[in-house]
């Protein structure tokens, strides 16, 4: 298990009843993205300064080579197994399911990975690519700090210097992860421009890369940015969905009826959904951050409320004003507090393969509480959005149905922010 999805395309897939069936040609086509220009249908591409083009071409070429190199695959698999602890468990949340009174809720436990989230799947893969390209330094952006910690971890493991850009608002609300990054030897550079969140951290990391591109690799943490990043990050995260399929078949002999994941930039969702794209009978549900409500500036849900446009190197749904200026967005969860989304999600929205909804702050908090009290699991605030919507969905479905949730990260990092939010609510 683990690593990249194998390049040969499957001509068959598991039907929900476990019978092997021919693949639907439309769904099969939906999986054959991106094209050579990095297009997922109309979305994606590459909108960056010319300075970065050579590095992006080199990255795409190196990734292509690595993908077909058994030694690379072997090394990554070994790291995922013995360092990260994969495969991550598939857990039947019985008490949570009973609480909802409907379908069975199952959790893919990415929160149990080393460093506490799915982010490490990508950073190890990209760190191996960094080494293959002979680059000696790594930079990254982070929102919730999970990608920052996962990058700092991978860099410590391979002895690479690491600089993480993080908005000062996020440094405040995700302090435990800032300490961890520093303990791991990374330099955390606060970003005070704009909204001082993930979007500004990406801007600063891109600016660093503009000057350092010849010696530095930029490990983007989500399925965003210019080609080939959205593809590479999705492929490294696809281990989540690939494992889930095998585990589901082994445990219950069929695939789930619905798969739910939270979407900020969208990496855990992309990794979870991609391996299920061809399974017609598996509904896929992406959950954006609904924040405080549908009014402009109150949420971080470009797929729900935005329009296609250009941000951070790709063409995708984005929250912009009429002039094309990026809007401020809001989510209590730093990892979802982002005005854009990965281009493949825009493609899945356009093709209808994935349904997208959004979950407001207070509902996500109820999801957090429900999982904590019924199952003894503290989910990350990001993942709590998916938990809340999965509970809502499960309540309306029969007991035989299976709802699989990507529990993308654990909530330890959020403890003090949650305490603060709850105290503010009580006032």
């Amino acid at each position, binding site marked *: 298990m683990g690593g990249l999805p194998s390049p040969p395309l499957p001509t068959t897939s598991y039907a929900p009843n476990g019978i092997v069936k021919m693949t639907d040609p439309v769904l099969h086509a939906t999986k054959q993205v991106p094209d050579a220009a990095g297009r997922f249908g109309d979305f994606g591409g*590459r909108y960056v300064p*010319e*300075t970065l*083009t050579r590095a992006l071409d080199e990255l795409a070429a190196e990734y292509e080579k690595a993908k077909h190199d058994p030694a690379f695959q072997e090394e990554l698999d070994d790291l995922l197994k013995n360092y990260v602890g994969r495969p991550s468990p598939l857990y039947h949340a019985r008490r949570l399911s009973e609480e909802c009174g409907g379908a069975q809720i199952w959790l893919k436990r990415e929160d149990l990975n080393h460093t506490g989230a799915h982010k490490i799947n990508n950073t190890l893969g990209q760190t191996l690519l960094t080494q293959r390209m002979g680059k000696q330094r790594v930079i990254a952006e982070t929102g919730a700090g999970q990608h920052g910690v996962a990058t700092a971890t991978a860099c410590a493991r391979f002895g690479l210097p690491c600089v993480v850009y993080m908005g000062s608002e996020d440094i405040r609300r995700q302090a435990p992860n800032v300490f961890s990054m520093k303990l791991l030897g990374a330099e955390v550079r606060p970003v005070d421009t*704009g909204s001082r969140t993930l979007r500004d951290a990406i801007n600063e990391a891109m600016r660093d890369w503009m000057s350092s591109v010849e010696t530095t690799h930029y490990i983007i943490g989500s399925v965003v940015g210019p080609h080939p990043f959205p593809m590479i990050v999705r492929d490294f995260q696809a281990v989540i969905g690939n494992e889930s399929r095998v585990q589901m078949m082994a445990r219950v002999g069929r695939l789930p009826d619905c798969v739910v994941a939270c979407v900020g930039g969208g990496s855990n969702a992309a990794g979870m959904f991609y391996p299920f794209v061809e399974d017609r009978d598996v509904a896929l549900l992406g959950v954006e951050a609904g924040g405080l409500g549908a009014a402009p500036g109150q949420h971080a849900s470009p797929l729900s409320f935005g329009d296609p446009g*250009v*941000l951070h190197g790709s063409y995708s749904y984005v929250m912009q004003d009429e002039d*094309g*200026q990026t809007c401020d967005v809001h989510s209590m969860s730093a990892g979802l507090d982002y005005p854009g989304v990965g281009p493949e999600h825009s493609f899945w929205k356009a093709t209808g393969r994935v349904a997208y909804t959004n979950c407001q702050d207070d509902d996500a908090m109820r999801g957090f509480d429900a999982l904590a009290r019924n199952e003894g699991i503290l989910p990350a605030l990001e993942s709590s959005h998916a938990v809340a919507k999965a509970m809502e969905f499960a309540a309306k479905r029969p007991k035989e149905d299976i709802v699989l949730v990507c529990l993308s990260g654990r909530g330890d990092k959020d403890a003090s922010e949650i305490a603060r939010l709850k105290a503010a609510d009580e006032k």
Partner: protein
Amino acid sequence: MSAIDQLFTELKQQGRKALMPFVTAGDPDVDFTAAVIRELAARGATMCEVGIPYSDPIADGPVIQASYTRALEKHVRLADILAMLGATTRAISMPVVTMVSYAIVYRHGLEKYVREAKAAGVAGAIVPDLLVEEAGPLSDICRREDFSLIQLVTPTTPRERALRIAESSTGFLYYVSVTGITGERQALPAEVTENVGWLRSQTELPICIGFGISQPEHVRMLSPVADGVIVGSAFVRRMATAAERPRDEVLAEIGSFATSLLETLDHRAN
């Protein structure tokens, strides 16, 4: 033939080089931007590059970034900038081009942007986040409208690719002197002259050099190989003081800085 093509034809005949200052539109307001453009024209600047503020400019250093932020905090709108340019360009012969993110052009509508900019007397656009691979649709409209689409070549651009960019670019070719973001630098890389010299041997298109250029010494170093130089942050930094100083004083300072650069350019050319 666009206004920029005509300009370079004339400069070539006269054996002169171009100076293109960069100014941020709307910092602190569009009236001041208009006054700066007029001042630069009066001092004999050859062209002017007007930066359309953008919320997420990844190719820009702190000085231009901060000017964009100030302008956007004052809610400057694209329509206000184009209206100001329409009124300003009528009274001057110096061509004006816009530096504008593709996020803005796309949102506005490619065709609509080009038509409205052209109607405002703008001669062309530099779109710093539009690569040659993605430039097709905008490039077609620009050719049809005789509106220059100036494209960029950088030190990291492989030579074969540079030729492709030169073929696609119109007006002039923008050579980025450094691997990095905009902003003043003490020294420029020595290989600039070699790289531009090579480009010069490959294309008929005029070549202007930008990024990092802020001192007469830089101009002295580059003018033998380039058809023009672009100076951004050094102007924007001076403009930034207009919020708290008498505007006449700031304008005079910007004007004399432009004059010092022009004298260096003409001195070299003669």
